[in-house]
């Protein structure tokens, strides 16, 4: 028993050393620096931001980093009004916003948006044309696309959603979404609504896919981060960090760290594809 404990302790120590060694390099830049960085905006970014912040603050306790949500629009607005240092968005800054605020954008990851249905829905594959007709309200029964005889329940996101923006532009080709569609407020809410409604169809960020929902093939293409990365799955977007003017000081270092080689694992672990 005692011996086993010792081995476990040694293993743990080894793992900790290894982690420490692997992470030390990119964090050197923060040595001797102090100050605070405030981050807000897109909710898809949060896992990556939190992990980067945790590593930096562990290496250098004199730096404080706070990460808040709010959504893409809020992120752009807050950084534009200088209320935060970095405003995240899941869509590019619009021309009107840029004219007003003068922001600099840093895309650090690529995220795909997948069509989802309930896990026990027998439909395995849909064409882009079928999906467009379903969301437009022209196809209203699952039996018309090879499923059972049941009315299709549409779920969509609010207009502020970056996920909706990319899905609407790249898959629905800016087509109409039936006004009878239910509207949910986040990727998480979409997943829980679709997973419990056997007749549902909706869409979530690929990072949110798990076994509670099913992503049918799109025109024969399996929907995964890999197909999104090699470009065969077309419904993808970039995740941006935005600053007001060129960043400086520790904010610049933070952005450099997220865009650098040492944060790649955090981006992949969060379900996204690094741009670098």
């Amino acid at each position, binding site marked *: 028993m005692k011996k086993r404990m010792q081995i476990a302790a040694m293993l743990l120590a080894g793992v900790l050393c290894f982690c420490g060694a692997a992470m030390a390099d990119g964090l050197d830049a923060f040595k001797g620096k102090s100050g605070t960085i405030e981050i807000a905006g897109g909710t898809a970014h949060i896992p990556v931001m939190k992990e980067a912040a945790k590593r930096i603050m562990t290496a250098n306790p004199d730096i404080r980093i706070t990460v808040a949500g*709010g959504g893409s*629009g809020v992120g752009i607005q807050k950084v534009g009004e200088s209320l935060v240092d970095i405003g995240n968005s899941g869509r590019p800054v*619009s021309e*009107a*916003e840029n004219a007003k605020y003068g922001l600099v954008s840093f895309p650090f990851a690529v995220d795909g948006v997948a069509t989802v249905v309930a896990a026990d829905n027998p439909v395995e594959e849909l064409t882009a044309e079928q999906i467009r007709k379903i969301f437009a309200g022209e196809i209203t029964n699952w039996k018309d696309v090879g499923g059972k005889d049941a009315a299709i329940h549409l779920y969509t996101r*609010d*207009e502020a959603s970056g996920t909706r923006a990319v899905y609407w532009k790249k898959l629905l080709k*800016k087509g109409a979404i039936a006004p*009878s569609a239910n509207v949910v407020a986040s990727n998480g809410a979409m997943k829980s*609504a679709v997973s419990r409604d056997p007749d549902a169809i909706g869409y979530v960020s690929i990072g949110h896919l798990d076994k509670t929902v099913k992503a049918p093939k799109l025109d024969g293409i399996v929907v995964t981060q890999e197909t999104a990365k090699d470009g065969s799955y077309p419904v993808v977007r970039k995740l941006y960090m935005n600053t007001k003017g060129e960043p400086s000081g520790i904010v610049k270092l933070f952005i450099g760290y997220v865009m650098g080689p040492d944060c790649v694992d955090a981006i992949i672990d969060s379900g996204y594809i690094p741009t670098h």
Partner: protein
Amino acid sequence: MLHAAAAVSCLAVLAVFLFLLRFAAPLFSTEGLAKVMQWRWEPFGGHFGILPMIVGTVCLSISAMVVAAPLSLGIACFVNGMGPKRLARPVLGVVQFMTSIPTVVYGFVAVFLLVPFIRSAFAHGSGFSWLAAALMLSLLILPTMVLVLHSQFSQVEPEVRLTAAALGLSKAQAFVHLVLPLSRRGLLASAILGFGRAVGDTLIPLMLAGNAVKPPESVLDSIRTLTAHIALVVATDSSSGAYHSLFACGMILFLTTVAVNAGLRWVAGGNGRA
């Protein structure tokens, strides 16, 4: 000290009103008003109609009242002598406890239990519906209404009890002919307070009503209220027309609340007790 507190709260309300007025100002030209007062909400197509949301708010709050008003009246009568005495305190205790349940708990429980039940029981729509939201909303406003009624009945009922008994009235007769007419103000106050809460609640409609921008054709249809609409759109691009149309929603809600409060004051300040 009291004056300062009063002044601060008055100023805060005034500031909110002026802020809303300032930001909603562009909408109150004839052109701006026509833009908002229409049925189509397609922000990317330049249509910012909020009429479906106004209809949604009216439908939901009135239907919640229709369910909650008779229930709260029944409970208030029950705990004020109509029901068995030993049950009065526990029932009142449960109602008081209900006031402390956070809205999000009601919403969360309903998403897991009520919505799937409605979906499978009626085989129409996804379960996220006017009906689901109305039922939970009535549960939410019930304790407020019961407690207002109770405080009124517990004053009136002991006063008329002896007289009623001397006249040979049964308990039920005493309630219908004496207590209820004498409590007219309390009845109105509880209705107004309950209605105010029903109009203003955001989380229940946001989580349960489905938020489709469409006037409902049945209680099983998905609807969107003004409050849920603001919550959904507030994160949008802040220089867009969609964002600015929110101030009209805020204005309508604010004016509704003011109207409800003015109504309450008018009722409470009315002459005499009848």
